[in-house]
């Protein structure tokens, strides 16, 4: 899942898809954390994932909001449209 996310992030140009890919990476890490906590009989990992999910939800709302703003100014979702942001 993490690998799918990385590949998606590197290959696609659409901002929303790229954002979805970051979420995929998140969940990939979360699932592996749960798996390891199950394997090690340690509930700390699961508790940790719950926190990560809460943060991810908040961050998802923020990021989508930003993407909407970016779309409004340029009328496109292409990530390369923002190249001038380089320092």
């Amino acid at each position, binding site marked *: 899942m993490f690998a799918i996310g*990385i590949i998606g*992030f*590197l*290959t696609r*140009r659409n901002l929303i898809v790229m954002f979805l890919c970051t979420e995929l990476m998140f969940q990939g890490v979360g699932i592996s954390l749960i798996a390891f906590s199950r394997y090690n009989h340690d509930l700390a990992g699961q508790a940790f994932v719950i926190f990560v999910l809460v943060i991810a939800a908040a961050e998802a709302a923020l990021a989508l909001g930003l993407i909407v703003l970016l779309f409004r100014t340029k009328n496109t979702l292409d*990530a*390369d449209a*923002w*190249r001038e942001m380089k*320092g």
Partner: protein
Amino acid sequence: MSELFAVKYSFLIPLLPLLGAIVAGFAGAKLLKGRSHWPIWIGVGISAILSISLLAGMLGLWHTGQNLSVAKDVYTWIDTGNFVAKAGFWFDPLTAIMLCVVTGIGFLITVFAAGYMKGENGYFRFFAYLGLFIFSMTCLVMGSNFIMLYLGWEGVGLCSYLLIGYYYEKPAAREAAKKAFLVNRIGDFGFGLGIMLIWKTFHTVSYFGQGVGTNTGVFELAQMGHLTAYQLTALKVIPFFLLLGAVGKSAQFPLYVWLPDAMEGPTPVSALIHAATMVTAGVYMISRCGVLFFGNQPAMMTVACIGAFTALLAATIALRQTDLKKVFAYSTISQLGFMFVGVGVLAPVAGVFHLVTHAFFKALLFLSSGVVMHAMSGELDMRKMSGLKKVLPITNLLMLVGCAALAGFPFLSGFFSKDAIVGAAFARSNILGGVMLFTALLTAYYTFRLYFQVFQGPLIVPPAPAGDHGGHGGHDDAHGQDHKHNHEPMLMIAPLIVLAIGAVLAGYINWPSRHASFGDFLGQSPSLKQGYDVAKASYGEIDGSALGQRITGAEAEAPFTPIMGISAFVAIAGIFLAYELHLKNRAKAEDLAQSAQPFTAIVQGKFFVDEIYQGLIVEPLRTLGSKLDGFDKFIDVMVALVGNILQIFGYLLKLTMQRGYLQGYAAAMLLGIVAILLFFFAT
């Protein structure tokens, strides 16, 4: 002793002038304006009353033969580990006399200043500084330890700087203020080192610790028998460090050069700080530290020689000065030299006695010349004026009294005190005595040269530059007009009359010159008692009465000594010479000056001491400074270079790597993470 009213409330003596200064300083600009002198009058006035009541109380106790010294701590000021400095006071006859001089004459001068400075810009500022000065000076003379002494010492230096630079819009005043501050810095540096060395040697800075006889203070520890080799060595050098401070503050050779320039300040300041009080701090300090100085023969020799040389040098320079205040400035330096000789030849009584009388008549002379300056619209060049007794009749009389006292005219105050010093100098060495006697002759001559030139003869008044009061920066026209009618306002004349009475009568406080008089009272001070002990141990048999000690044998000495006759003759001869040359036949003086040409030129150039300092010290230092500045610039460039190189690297990276492709960054990050992981797993 401690039940004395004045001792109980002694903390008010420095506190009230300080409060006055704060009120005048912060409320003066907006609220008080022309009334800014009131806080200072009240503060200094009450201080003066307390000081006089302290002296009176002490005199009462003295007659009943009680102990006259007490330490009074107010609070612990600095307490860090084993270094403790208390904000405390030490009272003995020396303190009481100095306090009366400082606050008493200080009060008279603040009264005078209210008349003199009327209408000046920054009137409140002047009085705030004056209050601060009185605060510092009282701390200096009352302090019970070297840290308080140093506080006052630096405080008066600061006030001196501020007040010399009072007319800061005049470049000469700014330069003079800086010069005074910097030259004093040299002396204060030595003084500071001396105090540090005292602490290192005795692990205390207090004079007498818990009181006399407790052996907890520097002065008593220094006198104890079992001193280590280190302490003995330190005792040999400490006086020289302290002396450096005294030489700076009391304007002695080689650090006297700031005082003549300091005359750029307002005249009341010249009278208070640069004649009556601050410059005598060195004499006070040496008397106070008698136990450190009086047993140390090389140090005493140095004090006496510096004093004698300065007295002669300054008196010689004064011969050819034409600026009224400059004459008095050099005269002050010369008289301070007399005081140094006084303490240097183991006669601190004579030294402090001359300090007191000098404070009266020199303050009188300065303030009188202030009246002249006020009336002559800031003109001070005595060649441009003559016969002023017709315009300024009261000032003429006051000036005459002051000049006669300074010249040592018989039975005026200067006569007694100067005679005491000359006599003590002869007792130590004939050369020293001879020099002092010759200086006394010069003193009488230059003083009356000034008097005859300015007040006698045909009336010549310098033309008043309309509306422009040269020396008086901010005098406005209306004020100048005001004084056309009355050159001698009561507010200015009244303090002068008090000072004149003092100048006539102050000599009689040491009359008859041995017992039951000033000397004996002063001798009750433990500083002098100890000084006598160490001096006796070092020099063998000495004249104890010069240190105010009661000794058997020479008790019934006559009040008149042969020295008195000689010095009276010398004074009158000097006055007569001045009369011949500067009143009867004024052209003759110039002829005489021309006939002794190279010498006259040298004297006129003040022995070129300023130029020599400029060439030998200031210029090399400036060259060194500019060289160091060049080196500093080199370092700056090197430091900047380090930053510049990194900046270039950053710029290159920006051009090559930062291209704006989000995926590019992500790929680079991924590659980086992979590289790190590989690195970790590989090791």
